C-alpha cells in the first residue's frame, strides 16, 4: 500500500499548498502566541506591528478582538483558522498520497480549534493541544510517504511558508539561515523539468541577501518577493 512514485501535476500543486497552508496555520499560531505573551503586560497595541508586517492596518478595538479574529475567524484570510481550512481543502484530495491517518490530524486540528474557541480555559492553554496535533500530522506524513520527490515538494511548501513569515516578522538571522539551508536541500531534490524547480535568478538573490547576515532585515521585502517568485519559469524554452 505504498504511495505512487509518479506525481501528477494536480498532486504536486496540492502537496505544495498543503505544506504551505499547514505551516502557515502553525507558524501563525506560534507567532500569535508569542505576541499574546507580550501584549498582556508590555504593550497592549503591540499587535499593530504584526499587522504592519503583513501590510494590514488596525481595525480592531483592542488586542482581544485582534486575537479572536486572527486565530478563529475563517472569513479573515490572514487568520490561522482560514489557513487550516485551506490546508483541509488541499489535504482532502491527497488522501491516497498522504494516507487517511495523516489527513485525520487536519480534521483533529479543526476540531481542536473549534473546541479552543468555545473553551473557558485561557487562550494559550486551550490552543496547546493543536501544536501536538500538527506535529502528529507531520510525523504521519513523513512516516507514510516513501517517495522522496513527494516529500521534497510538501516540505518545500512548508519551509517557504515558514521563511516568509519569519522574514516578515524579522526573526533572528540564525533561525532564518537554518531554515534557508533546509529549503536549499529540498530544492535540490526536485527534478529540473518539474513546475517546482527553482528559478536560478531568484535563488541567487536570496543567497545574496543571506550573505548580509543580521543585515538581512534591510532587504527583507526583496527576500519575501524573491521567495514568492522562486518557482517562476526561468525563461522561454
Amino acid at each position, binding site marked *: *500500500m*505504498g504511495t*505512487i512514485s*509518479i*506525481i*501528477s*501535476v*494536480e*498532486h*504536486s500543486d496540492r502537496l505544495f499548498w498543503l505544506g504551505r497552508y499547514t505551516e502557515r496555520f502553525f507558524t501563525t499560531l506560534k507567532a500569535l502566541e508569542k505576541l499574546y505573551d507580550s501584549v498582556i503586560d508590555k504593550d497592549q497595541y503591540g499587535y499593530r506591528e504584526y499587522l504592519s508586517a503583513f501590510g494590514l492596518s488596525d481595525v480592531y478595538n483592542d488586542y482581544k478582538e485582534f486575537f479572536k479574529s486572527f486565530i478563529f475567524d475563517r472569513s479573515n484570510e490572514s487568520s490561522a483558522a482560514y489557513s487550516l481550512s485551506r490546508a483541509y481543502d488541499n489535504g*482532502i*484530495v491527497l*488522501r*491516497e498520497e498522504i*494516507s*487517511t491517518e495523516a*489527513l*485525520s490530524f487536519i*480534521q*483533529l486540528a479543526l*476540531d481542536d480549534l473549534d473546541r479552543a474557541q468555545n473553551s473557558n480555559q485561557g487562550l494559550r492553554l486551550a490552543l496547546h493541544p493543536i501544536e501536538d496535533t500538527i506535529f502528529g500530522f507531520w510525523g504521519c506524513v513523513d512516516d507514510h510517504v516513501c517517495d522522496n520527490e513527494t516529500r521534497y515538494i510538501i516540505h518545500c511548501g512548508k519551509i517557504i511558508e515558514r521563511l516568509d513569515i519569519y522574514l516578515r516578522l524579522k526573526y533572528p538571522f540564525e533561525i532564518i539561515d537554518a531554515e534557508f539551508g533546509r529549503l536549499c536541500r529540498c530544492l535540490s531534490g526536485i*527534478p529540473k*523539468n*518539474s*513546475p*517546482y524547480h527553482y528559478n536560478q535568478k531568484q535563488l541567487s538573490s536570496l543567497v545574496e541577501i543571506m550573505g548580509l547576515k543580521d543585515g538581512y532585515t534591510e532587504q527583507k521585502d526583496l527576500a519575501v518577493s524573491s521567495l514568492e517568485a522562486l518557482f517562476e519559469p526561468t525563461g522561454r524554452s
Partner: protein
Amino acid sequence: MENISFPSANVKEINELLRRYGVKFGIYKNGEFKEQLFPFDTIPRVISADSFSYLEKGLIQRVDALNMFLYDIYHEKKIIADKIIPEEFVYISSGYLPQCEGITPPKKIYSHISGIDLVEGKDGEWYILEDNLRIPSGASYPLIARELTRTASPDCFSQSGIVDNRNYAELLRSAMDSVNCGGINAILTPGRYNAAYFEHSYLAELTGAALVQNNELFVEDNMLFQKTYTGGKTRIGALYRRISDEYLDPLTFNPCSVIGVPNLTEAYRAGNVAVINALGNGVADDKGIYYFVPKMIKYYLNEEPILKNAPTYLPFYEEDRKYVLENLEKLVIKDVAEAGGYGVVFGSDLTAEKLADFRQTIINEPRRFIAQEVIDFKDLPIIENGEQVMRKADLRAFVLSGEKTRVWASGLTRFSRNPDSFVVNSSQGGGFKDTWVLSR
C-alpha cells in the same frame, strides 16, 4: 446466533471516529456545498454461515448471467432471437448504447463490481430488489466502519468467528489487475465535490491505484495516459471510473461533458485500456430488464435461479397490466428511468384521485413502469436516542468479477431512519450498518 455480542462502544463514539477519518459525503443544499456524515449504527446485520453460502451461490450465478447477457446484447443478441426477452425492453433502455456494439471488453467482463440490493423477507426468504452494474457505491463505508469498530470494541470480535471484511481492497485490486491491459490502475473521480468522493479516495489509498481527474488524462496513440509533473506520461491499463457513461468521452457521447476524457472510447475499443465497469452496462440493470434476470439465468447457465426476484409485473404485458391497474393501491411502482430511490411510489400512499391519474399514466406509457408486491421485509434493530427501535433495512451485496466471480463477505446494510418509510437510500437521509458474515 445467540452467542453474538455487539460492539460495546456507543453509537456516538464510533460516529466520532468516522468523522475524524473523513467518512462524509458531499451534498449541495441551496447551492452551497456541504459535507455530511453518513450516520452509522453499531448493531450489525448478522448473516449466518449457511445463509451466506446460499447468498454467495445465488449472487455469483446472477452476476455471471448478467455478464453473459451484456456480452450477448452487444454481440450476437441470441437471447432476443430466441425470444426470451422482447427486443423493446432492450433497445429502448437509456442504458443501451449502440456505440458499444461489437466492443469486447477484456475477458468479456462487463460488470466487474456489481452492487446487488436484497432484502430479507419476514418469511426468512431473500429477495433481489435491484441490480446495480454501472457505478455502485458504498463498499467503503462498512469497510472503514469495521476497522473503527474493531478499534473501539475489540472484545466483541474475539469470540464469534466474524469473517474479516477488510479484504475488499484486495478483491478490488485483483479485479482491476485481472483486466489491466498494461499500465497502472487508476480511479477516475469527478472531484471532491462528488457525493462519493470519500469512497473514491479511500479505495485509491487502499488499492494503490492512482486517483485521477479528467484534466490530467489524455489519449494518444489509442492509449490512455496520465500526465506527470515533469512533463512525462504514465500509461493507465485499467480505469475504475466513477463517472457515468454519457459523460465519459465528449467525442463519443455527450459533447458538452467537461469531466470526460476525449477518445477514451477509441482506446477502449482498441483493447488498450479496461474500463471498469464497462460502457453500456445500464441496459442490464434497467428496472425493466430486472424482470427477465431469472429467465437469463436459465437461458445462459441452464440452471434454476437460486435467488428470487420480488414478485414483479410488467404493465407492458396485457395480463400484468390488468393486474397492476386492479391492484395499484397495494403495489409499489417504479419508474424505470429513475435511480437512487427516486421515482418509487407506493400505491398505498396515493389518494383515490392520484391513483386514477396514475392508472392513466400507466396505460399511456406501460413500458415506463414496473410494479412489485410490497415485500414485508424484516426490520432490524437500531439505536435511536439511546433506545433500541426497529427499522426497515436492505443489503447491498458486492460481487467482484475478475479471474473468478467472488462475493465480498460483508455488504452495505442501509436503514431508513423514518419508521414509516421503506426507502433506505442514503440520498434520502438513511443510515448504514456493518454486515457481519459468520464463519461457522
